């Protein structure tokens, strides 16, 4: 009888153990992931790296949120907002009755204090620069008890997007970093080991059925810098989700556990190469003449088989790239711009029309110099090493000899940004901002990241001058249509002039335990957690 009396307790213990093992301990499900590094700070206004941005996204409440799926802006703490016709003033109407996670009420004073602190030069907030112009800083004006306006000295394009990163902090709370308006709050942090985020009981958002969000009770991030260990732990079931997989790991997971691997389609990231066009670069003049020739750049671009790169290097999880933005960026991608088709015969004709000729299977220029140059790329990146091998064979078909030189990353950066001692470079472009304004530092001829010829005092070519004009025009215009027209033209000029030879756009590859519901991978940070408030973990009985 005694044994029978103990049986329910034993069964209860067993059930608790079983639930703990799949991460759904108690009633509140816990999501487990890995974070590549410790966040440098929990102060949302000082965050400038990926780990910190992920935590800020999950804990911070912002006035306007950029929806990673619809690519539209949505009001969060602001019930509505209005942009003045001249593009210089944004007025926010705040959502009433909101509270911070510690229970202190949210008011217009919190917005004013946060924005003023962010604009304070002494704080050195990375977002602050966007709110300061030569004419002076932006002014924050309280119009009504629930209405606040930000007046900019000059018109700023896509100004609303800036507010996606500004998490509002409390003026009243004693612990400002832990008192938040986002779906989660930092509950525990053991440096180098883990961060535990718990559900914010005062989070304002409700689902369609009126249930309070988020569904998850907590999110545990284990600090795990090693990607192989992260993958191993995911395969063992110790982690629920993993983002940023390479094609080989993705295929492996796909073959092992169908339904786990998630192909999110084209990302915002491109692989590309460019020719060194810096006038003072220590390379022979005849090579500078080749690289400065639009016909040469366009012909070599046409000699590259992008489909093979996507198929052989990325196992089909990539597609030929056309320009700086992929079709994943629905707002800004110019659909008229297509990837250069693979046509080596056509390329050879173009080169011959520019004075090049084939001698014994090798291409020579008009001064009889054999067309041979080096391609530098960062060592240790197997995908780029393979791309380089494919490029080598493709270009050999038009008589061009390519020497591949993998360099350690610091040496490569030194060459492309300071000494300019290189001929061509193969690298990737990671787009963290879907707005063209995020690429001003690439396209302006005076910019440091204008890689083929950086820091120009005056545009070296008429088409670069035109890109400068169009980029400035779009940056100053409050009208989306005008901005779109300008940037469409920029994309067309890039496709015509080929300063960057865009190769492929990688897919967003990730994996999630099928028990995790509502997963929708995005190319933008935080890839799998952008809708964390809607993620849930199905219990064993429910998943069956």
């Amino acid at each position, binding site marked *: 009888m005694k044994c029978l009396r103990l049986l329910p307790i034993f069964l209860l213990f067993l059930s608790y153990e079983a639930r703990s093992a799949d991460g759904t301990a108690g009633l509140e499900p816990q999501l487990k992931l890995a974070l590549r590094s410790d966040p440098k700070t929990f102060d949302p206004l000082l965050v400038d790296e990926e780990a910190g941005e992920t935590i800020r996204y999950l804990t911070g409440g912002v006035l306007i949120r950029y929806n990673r799926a619809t690519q539209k802006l949505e009001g969060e703490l602001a019930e509505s907002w209005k942009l003045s016709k001249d593009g210089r003033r944004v007025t926010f109407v705040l959502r009433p009755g909101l509270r911070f996670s510690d229970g202190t009420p949210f008011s217009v004073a919190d917005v004013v204090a946060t924005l003023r602190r962010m604009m304070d030069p002494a704080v050195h907030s990375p977002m602050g620069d966007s709110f300061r112009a030569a004419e002076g800083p932006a002014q924050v004006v309280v119009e009504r008890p629930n209405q606040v306006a930000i007046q900019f000295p000059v018109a700023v394009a896509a100004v609303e997007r800036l507010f996606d990163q500004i998490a509002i902090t409390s003026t009243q709370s004693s612990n400002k970093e832990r008192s938040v308006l986002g779906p989660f709050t930092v509950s525990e942090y053991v440096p180098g080991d883990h961060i535990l985020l718990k559900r914010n009981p005062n989070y304002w958002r409700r689902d369609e059925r009126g249930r309070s969000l988020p569904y998850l009770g907590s999110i545990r991030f284990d600090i795990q810098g090693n990607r192989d260990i992260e993958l191993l732990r995911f395969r063992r079931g110790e982690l629920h989700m993993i983002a940023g997989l390479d094609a*080989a*790991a993705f295929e*492996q997971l796909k*073959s092992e556990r169908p339904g786990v691997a998630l192909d999110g389609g084209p990302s915002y990231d491109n692989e590309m190469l460019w020719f060194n066009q810096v006038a003072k670069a220590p390379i022979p003049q005849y090579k500078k003449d080749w690289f400065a020739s639009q016909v040469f750049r366009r012909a070599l671009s046409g000699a590259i088989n992008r489909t*093979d790169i996507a*198929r*052989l*290097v990325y196992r089909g999880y990539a597609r030929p790239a056309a320009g700086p933005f992929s079709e994943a960026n629905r707002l800004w991608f110019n659909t008229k711009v297509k990837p250069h088709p693979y046509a080596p015969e056509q390329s050879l004709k173009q080169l011959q029309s520019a004075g090049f000729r084939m001698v014994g299977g090798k291409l020579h220029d008009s001064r009889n110099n054999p067309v*041979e*140059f*080096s391609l*530098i790329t960062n*060592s*240790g990146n*197997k995908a780029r*090493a*393979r791309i*380089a*091998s*494919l490029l*080598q*064979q493709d270009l050999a078909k038009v008589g061009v000899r390519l*020497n*591949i*030189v*993998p*360099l*350690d990353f610091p*040496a490569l950066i030194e060459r492309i940004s300071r000494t300019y*001692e*290189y*001929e061509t470079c193969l690298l990737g472009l990671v787009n963290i901002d879907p707005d063209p304004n995020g690429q001003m530092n690439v396209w302006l001829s005076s910019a440091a990241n204008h890689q083929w010829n950086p820091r120009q005092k005056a545009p070296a070519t008429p088409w670069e001058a035109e890109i400068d004009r169009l980029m400035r025009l779009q940056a100053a215009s409050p009208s989306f249509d005008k901005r779109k027209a300008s940037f469409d033209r920029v994309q067309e000029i890039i496709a015509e002039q080929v300063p960057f030879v865009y190769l492929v756009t990688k897919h967003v590859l990730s994996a999630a335990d099928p028990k995790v519901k509502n997963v929708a991978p995005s190319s933008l940070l935080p890839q799998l957690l952008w809708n964390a408030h809607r993620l849930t973990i199905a219990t064993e009985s429910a998943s069956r």
Partner: protein
Amino acid sequence: MRPKLHAAMRRLCACILIATFAAALLASFIAPASYETQFREDPGAGPSAKFLLGTDELGRDRLSRLLYGSRVSLLLAPAAAALAICIGLSLGVMAGCFAGTPARFALGFTDLVASTPSLLLLLFARALLPLNVQPATSVTITFFLLGAVGWTSGVRVFAAAASNANNSDYIRQARALGCPTRRLVFVHIASALLPVAAAQFWVLVPLFLLAEANMGMLGLGVSEPLPSIGNLLAEIQLSPQLWLQPAVLAPAGLLLVVLVSLQGLLTKERAS
């Protein structure tokens, strides 16, 4: 082991080594394809009549790459080891046989080189090289650099052995009989150091093969598309499903067979 069996084993090892080195030397003639030819319609193919060891991810014939890679590594790694032994032996003899300034210089110089991070030296050397060098030149320079910085570990062993030999009775007797120093060093002491040098040599060969693979990470190793045992071994790390592509392990197998065969020959020398 019985002498007859031992002799048979030694012959077998010799045959394997001769066959391997001959295959490596004749790679241009016996390889089914060039090491760089990409059969893009057959990427990651398994072993077949067309590709005996299958193809890699870019569709390059694994057997051809292994043969060419063996030529690069199996010839250049011993050459680099020989260079390292020559430098180490010279300084070891200087330290062990010539007391005073020469010994202090030899050991001090060794300590200086040993305490300098070789990575730094290699990076410095890479910075001095032009970008447009042929892969064959690049690989020769790579192994030369390995030999030029990888000699320090053996110097103290050589110095101790040279000192022992120098103080031995037969050297003293030779010296007393008026044997010239040059003959003492190059004939009598050198013969005493040969077994030590041989042991060091066989330690350095696999070490340099692996170092070459690691140097690829710095852009100093054998660059694409030229294969080497090192960069073929590195491919194993990038093949998550080895059981589906066992041919990826062929370079490791070849390296193992070569090293075991070399050891087999060395064991005989020691026994005799």
